[in-house]
């Protein structure tokens, strides 16, 4: 009989982290995500220019690198240039990132929760399968943008009155995006649950007498984690982009409220003269999405004990 202390194994969190570190893309992604998060949260305190204030005398400034190379109008008071109303691009990027990231994460989490819930219920309980999946098909067949526009028109004023203009719109956009983007997750999760619930270990859990809710949390959810993770990373991208589309249509945040998507759309018509105004917000969106994608990839590997330690 060996002593129980002899069988100490490294803790699970430690093992997961060790495996995660092996994934170079995920580590770079994590680094970038931390950077961009600090950039939008701490950045405005270091660069405390009001993003909405127009400095009309210094409008249409170019970023420092273009100014230095081609001798165009630039200055250190607007290192990434200013737009046609003289608003600082760097400050706009920081404030816009706050909103975009907040909307992206919350809407993604919301759609993930709804999608997983619907998928698991439909896959596990045969009686719910028909109604829930037909409902999913129904939502999937609705044209999303018009639906969102109608939602905005109907509820905007009420929510504004209840929570104030910023929080009200934020809640509206997040819910709007969340409840219109869960369908793919639900379908994928349902399919996986259908196959996993027929595995013998689920039968074994039932023979032990485990109730359905614990079979779901202990056996089904951990095993459908990979597809959930993949749709989560894609969901973040969709949420940021949908938000910018809404802002572009004038039904998102108020016009003096910068988001990455809105910066992008505001600058599209003058893209040829001022490409940097499109490049920076575009880069911020795509790099964030890419980073989250890689993190999801690394996390999926790290959470799978069959890959871990190989």
């Amino acid at each position, binding site marked *: 009989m*060996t002593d129980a202390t002899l069988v100490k194994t490294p803790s*699970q969190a430690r093992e997961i982290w060790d495996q995660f570190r092996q994934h170079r893309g995920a580590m770079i992604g994590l680094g970038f995500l931390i950077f961009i998060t600090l950039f939008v949260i701490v950045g405005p305190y270091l660069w405390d220019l009001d993003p909405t204030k127009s400095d009309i005398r210094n409008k249409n400034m170019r970023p420092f690198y273009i100014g230095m190379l081609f001798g165009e109008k630039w200055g250190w008071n607007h290192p990434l240039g200013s737009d046609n109303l003289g608003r600082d691009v760097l400050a706009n990027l920081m404030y816009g990132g706050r909103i975009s990231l907040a909307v992206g994460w919350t809407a993604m989490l919301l759609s993930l929760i709804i999608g997983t819930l619907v998928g698991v219920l439909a896959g596990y309980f045969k009686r719910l399968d028909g109604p829930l999946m037909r409902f999913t098909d129904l939502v999937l067949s609705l044209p999303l943008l018009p639906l969102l526009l109608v939602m905005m028109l109907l509820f905007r004023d009420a929510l504004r009155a209840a929570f104030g203009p910023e929080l009200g719109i934020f809640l509206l956009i997040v819910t709007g995006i969340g409840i219109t983007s869960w369908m793919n997750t639900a379908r994928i999760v349902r399919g996986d649950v259908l196959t996993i619930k027929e595995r013998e*270990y689920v039968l*074994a859990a039932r023979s032990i007498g485990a109730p359905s809710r614990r079979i779901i949390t202990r056996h089904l959810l*951990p095993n459908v984690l990979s597809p959930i993770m993949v749709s989560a990373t894609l969901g973040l991208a969709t949420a940021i982009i949908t938000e910018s589309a809404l802002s572009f249509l004038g039904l998102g945040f108020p016009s003096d409220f910068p988001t990455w998507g809105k910066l992008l759309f505001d600058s599209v018509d003058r893209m040829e003269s001022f490409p940097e105004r499109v490049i920076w917000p575009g880069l911020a969106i795509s790099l964030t999405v890419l980073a989250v994608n890689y993190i999801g990839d690394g996390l999926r590997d790290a*959470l799978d004990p069959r890959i871990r330690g190989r």
Partner: protein
Amino acid sequence: MFDAPTPLVRVRDLKMHFPIYSGLFRKRTGEVKAVDGVSFDVFEGETLGLVGESGCGKSTCGRAVLRLYDITEGEITIDGAEIGTKDQSDLRSMRPVMQMVFQDPQASLNPRMTVEAIIREPLDEHTTLSAAEKREKVLELMDAVGLNRAFAGRYPHAFSGGQRQRIGIARALALNPKFIVCDEPIAALDVSIQAQVVNLLEDLQEQFGLTYLFISHDLSMVRHIADRVAVMYLGKIVEIAPSDVLYTAPKHPYTQALLSAVPEPDPSADARGERIVLQGDVPSPSNPPKGCNFCTRCPKVMDICKEVEPASVELAPGHVTACHLYQN
């Protein structure tokens, strides 16, 4: 049975029919009679072997006895409690008494749980032990099934088939059950490991006073482990007898055919008689023949077999068969 003690498990006329839905409106058009009127007893401390060819309903029978399915009809009494008609939620308190060892050790262990978590799961469900007590119990169980304690934190993929089956057995033992259904526990293992696992099951039976329903298609292994053997064909039990009697003097034509297919290791002893080769295929369980289920392939078929279903007859104490050859 004359001097029989009360059986631990008593199954009477168990039926498990799976509905078939087809057509545009998913109408119920028939049913697969996987288990169709099975009766047997398992006495405390014994091993009842359940043999038969693939698809004859052995596994379904084992699962139905543990009420992993909602049975169509019949009575099941385990340890004095009638469980055939109970609700799944009411069965929860009965679960510790009856456990199951599964066929495929790879599929019956959750790949995302450590060995410790797998063996601890029944304890989590049914006991109020502290974490340290549970851990101690898990390690004791690992000792009992011959697993190194140091492996408690590993995942199932790191183990060989035989070791995985030991994990499955440890999980089944965790709640000190009285009755274990072994659903082809050795079918997925290679021969040397089969022997180890079977010996382990026998040792544990002795140690904990377990009762087994041992489902297998490996006739020689069943002869080794079982005290009594039941032979199934197409959802029905055709013959039950004590192991030695069944293997030396099988009565039912199907049992005779089945046993003649067992390979004989000694070539000189192989002259014991011709191999009975059955013609044709097993009929579909959704459309079993009228009369005796075996009448389509039986070498000794008579007219009555195609009309009347044979009743079970007790030929000798404990030796029951359902065949028209032995009626009256």
